[in-house]
């Protein structure tokens, strides 16, 4: 449905050039919800705008539904008007001088589509029904709440029956509670319509909740594409691992195949790295088993719980190891008393990365 090949783009500013996209390759299948995830400034918006035709990439090729809409070597650039896309902007871009109805109807009446008045009426009503805004047709746009604006933007984008729906952080302007509700509604809604969605966000929770597939972007490069679970459990590098939830980082050296000497002791883990190389190890807090008595399994260490933070549906423990490294542990269920404790890490939950990425780690530490 959406195919992006080797797209690059620079911005020329007074301070110099910014390489916003450096060779993006991406495929989005028909009917899929694809989430583009990355820190702010990683180039997500730029990529989305290139797709919409609001920016012109320097090189590469973009096609929509099999039609090339941009190609630098064939000198093709289809203007945004002819790409038949729906887009929800981060600011929602609800035209403030129009009512809700007029906002949704304007693209139907002013664009090249020749629709009869009746069809326009029906389409607008249908779209407003989808987003549950019936009855607000006459409301002037400035009188809408943030959540309502977001719905109008969505209705406007859907009313034109777009080839694909582009959304740029559509929930970032809503408050946290509303965001959660809208998130699940949104997935339900677009699945019902069956429209292809390319969704941009910097919030990994949103990505996990919404995506069929997700891509992690950083510094204008796509680091990993896959199901959210894949990115969570099998991150290809430190940046991806770091971005998805919290991580306990350990430094170590592979002493023999499958054995890593670390700050807290010897760990058994599968690793592709060769013997002798320096590595970093990522362990997610929820992959750590905590118990008051030793179980005798491999990868078990002794420590002391120094603090417990009760966070409602789970608790967070800080465990002091013998070598004074602190480890975070997340656990559901009844709290464990402070004091001596044993923690164990299952072998298949340990991710091992080459040490050369350490520099980026120590920066964050």
């Amino acid at each position, binding site marked *: 449905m959406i195919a992006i090949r080797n797209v690059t783009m620079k911005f020329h500013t007074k301070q110099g050039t910014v390489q916003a996209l450096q060779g993006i390759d991406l495929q989005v299948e028909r009917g899929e919800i694809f989430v583009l995830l990355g820190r702010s400034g990683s180039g997500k918006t730029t990529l989305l705008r290139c797709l919409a*035709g609001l920016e012109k990439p320097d090189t590469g090729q973009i096609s929509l539904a099999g039609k090339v809409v941009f190609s630098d070597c064939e*000198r093709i650039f289809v*203007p945004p008007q002819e790409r038949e896309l729906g887009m929800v902007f981060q*600011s929602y871009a609800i*035209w403030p001088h129009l009512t809700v109805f007029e906002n949704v109807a304007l693209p139907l009446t*002013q*664009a090249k589509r020749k629709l009869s008045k009746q069809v326009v009426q029906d389409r607008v009503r249908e779209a407003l029904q989808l987003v549950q805004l019936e009855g607000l047709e006459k409301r002037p746009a400035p009188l809408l709440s943030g959540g309502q604006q977001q719905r109008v933007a969505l209705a*406007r984008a859907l009313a034109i029956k777009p080839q694909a729906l582009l959304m740029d952080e559509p929930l970032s302007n809503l408050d946290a509670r509303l965001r959660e509700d809208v998130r699940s509604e949104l997935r339900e809604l677009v699945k019902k319509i069956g429209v292809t969605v390319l969704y941009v966000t910097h919030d990994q929770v949103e990505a996990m909740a919404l995506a069929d597939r997700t891509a992690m972007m950083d510094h204008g490069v796509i680091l990993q594409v896959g199901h959210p679970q894949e990115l969570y459990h099998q991150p290809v590098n430190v940046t991806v691992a770091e971005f998805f939830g919290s991580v306990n980082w350990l430094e170590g050296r592979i002493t023999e195949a499958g054995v890593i000497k670390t700050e807290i002791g010897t760990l058994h883990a599968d690793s592709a790295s060769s013997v002798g190389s320096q590595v970093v190890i990522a362990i997610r807090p929820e992959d750590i088993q905590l118990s008051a008595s030793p179980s005798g399994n491999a990868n078990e260490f002794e420590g002391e719980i120094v603090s417990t933070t009760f966070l409602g549906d789970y608790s967070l423990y800080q465990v002091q190891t013998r070598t004074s490294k602190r480890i975070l542990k997340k656990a559901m269920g009844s709290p464990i008393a402070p004091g001596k404790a044993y923690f164990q890490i299952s072998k298949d939950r340990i991710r091992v990365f080459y040490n050369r990425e350490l520099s980026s780690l120590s920066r964050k530490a």
Partner: protein
Amino acid sequence: MRRAVLRRLVIGPLLDRRTVLVGISLIPVAALTVLVSVIVWISFRQLAGAAAGYSLDAYRELYLDPFTYKALLNTAVFSLITVAVALLFGIPAAWLVERTDLRPKEIPQTLMVLGLLIPSFLTGMGWVFLLNPRIGIINTLITGIPGMEWARINVATAPGMGIIQGLGLANVAFIMVSPTFRAMNPVFEEAAEVHGLRFFQTLHKVTLPLAYPGVLAAAIYIFMIGVAAFDIPAVIGLSNRVFTFSTFLYIQVQPLDGLPRHDLAGASAVLMICISLLFLCWYYRALKSSHRYAVVTGQSYRPRQVELGRWKPWAWAFLGGYFLLGQLLPLSMLVWNALLPYPQVPSLSALGHVSLNNFRALPIHQLLIGAQNTFILAVSVPTLTLLFSLGLSWVVVRSGFRSRFFFDVFSFLPHAVPHIIFAVSAAYVSIFLLSGFLPIYGTIYLLMAVYTLVWLSFATRNLNSALIQIHKELEEAAAVSGIPLLRILRKILLPLLGPALLNTWLWVALLTYRELTVASILATTRNITLPAAMWGIWLSGLYPKAAAAALLVVAVMVPLVFLYWYVGRRATAMERTL
């Protein structure tokens, strides 16, 4: 079919609708280029007999003539005094309105904005009636006292005209400096007071230094207006042979005797352009640093109000004194003299001479033509100006073209170059270059074109700032949903720009209505405007009759002013532009 589609796709980005807007913007850019190049060109061109030659003779003559330096000195003195007087009244007034508990603020604010609309030729005339060495009422009073002949005040000097011009521009100073005071974060002043500085120390050491960049920008801007000013030097100085640069240029192309010297005018204009551009650069540097102190705080704050207490009557006296001197006194003099056969000191016996004779003696036919032309211009010029500046604004603010800087510079040219230069150049172009195939000289179209060009900066800067405030995504949302560019303009941008467009339109209409500088060069019997007709009468020395004509000009203007006041209320347009 397929090929057609392909072709459209390939050349699409080159030939899309944006070309229309760029095309619209290129028209004024081209016209400005022509006018400025022609002025440079004629400065080198000598008309000796039939053959034309090129030389530096005009420059030599200009720079060897002591008269030039006299005019330069006059211009400098005139402009400096203008700035001093404008700031002397404008800054305290702005401070009083923005930072003290003076109430109601709306009265001085409204009067200041309305004062901007009073044509300066009116106040100039009023002051002539008051202070002319021969006929001025005050002089008559002074010399009436035995032994006081020496105290006669002569307003027809560079400092005298500067004071009057400065009184007129205090409004501009007020409007330019007000935002500086309004946006000033009170924490600086509070910090000073907490640390023991007293009121005047705080004012002197904190408030004014913080306002300094904004004040400097206003000062340079007013100085530039002074250099280019025509109305007051013409109304007061011309008949007394006291010239500043604009009137110096004026007599070179409209000499009282002899032939017009276009080469000299060209050389003077080139000098004037260079000076103006220097000041423009300075102005921009000042403007940039005036944002340096802008304090970015998340929370909004209200500037703290200084309590005036027992100083309040003095504050009102100051403001009242300004309005009296700046507007009331000269304007009432104008009315008084329009009703008299010759200037007289107000008295009961003079009251016996009051009549409408001056109005009856006016050349009604000419004034009617003038009124008609003025009306046509006041409607067409703002419309054309808006059309072009909308195109320019869009290219500068929105297009993202690399060449937008070039358009930005050109849209600013009419602001930097004194208007009389465009008029002189346009006269030359239409008489000597176009007359063969486009006999535009002497028609209202010539005035229309030049007016449109000279107000372009004003309108473009106004629209630029309005356009910047409209979130770009509002247009992009329309583009993505398939709405073509020109429709985006009509359906999204125009309605959102509505208030700014209306405001700008009215301002340009008012500026056009009272315009004298360009008209004094380009108006003939056929395309005469109301101010030009009045100017003709004044030039021929019939002062009371000219006053009557001026009052007619104002009478027609009043409804327009009220319309503006009703619609605009606030000085938003001016504030954004300056």
